[in-house]
């Protein structure tokens, strides 16, 4: 199935991508999606999103659709959903 991913702020700058559509297996969870992304961008994903133990970094918020999902990476994704990876910012 297809998932839309939106990258923001520092992560967007680090990856050089605003958004993309990727194909994942049916019944994919949020963790599985992030692991798939980490295989493509190992260094940047580990720095900004998932640490070496595949735990969420404290500098990121994840939204599925318009809902923040906290640290629950077991959320099941569905066809066409948008996942937003919000990299924390503090510019004043």
């Amino acid at each position, binding site marked *: 199935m297809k998932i839309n991913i939106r990258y923001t*702020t520092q992560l*967007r700058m680090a990856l050089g991508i605003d958004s993309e559509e990727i194909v994942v297996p049916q019944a994919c969870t949020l963790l599985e999606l992030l692991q798939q992304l980490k295989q493509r961008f190992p260094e940047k994903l580990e720095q900004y999103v998932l640490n070496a133990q595949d735990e969420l970094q*404290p500098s990121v918020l994840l939204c599925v659709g*318009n809902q*923040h999902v906290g640290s629950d990476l077991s959320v099941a994704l569905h066809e066409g959903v948008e996942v937003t990876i*919000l990299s924390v*910012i*503090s*510019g*004043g």
Partner: protein
Amino acid sequence: MDDQLRNSSGIPLNDVERATYEWQMWVPDFGEIGQQRLKGASVLVTRCGGLGSVVAYELAAAGIGKLVLAHAGEVKHSDLNRQLLMTYDGLGKSRVESARHRLLELNPRLQIEMVAENATEQNVSELVSQADVVVDCAPLFEERMLLNREIVAQRKPMVDCAMYELEAHLTTIIPGVSPCLQCLYPELPKVWRREFPVFGAVSGMVACLGAMEAIKLIAQFGETLTGKLVTCNLRDMTFRTLSIGRNPNCSLCANIHP
């Protein structure tokens, strides 16, 4: 929300104030009572940089009664692309003094409490205690988390504004009602750098939104961003409102109830 804010009927206006604020008092649900509430309220703006300068300027223009401004240091050339309360004449001089001068040109009735320091462990309790609402415009997470801890302890609402490059985030925290910063970021984020790419038009845009949140909180009208996070990307003019929830295990606010 702070009971004092909720129960406030503000301070009666004089003729000059009625004339000055006439056009905004035409706003439905705001009116003269809203203006009176602004006159009777105080707002802490932490750092008067690209964000805080514009927050303070808009609140001064709107007729807020008192501003508490906390910002250390002297005006530098690199402030002047966005810190709209700072001027070339003020180079090398105190930032809060420059801010005070500009704000009083706009609104000579405004009370200003100037603190030539950033929020620290030593001063944060006193700073927050002087305000009905806090607007967090700090460029460092250490300061944001400190302010967050204190507004939770004192049960004060805080508007949290942040920007980076052409993007911005904005939310309103009401302790016990909406997620606090600790709910969202249980540990101090490690990836933030003190210096960041910024246009004044971006920081000013989110500052205007933040000032409007403070005005709505004080005047008690409209809907605030309680439990919501607005994200903006001016590169493609995308504005989104995301739902954010409290963390039931938050070490700061999990045991606080409305």
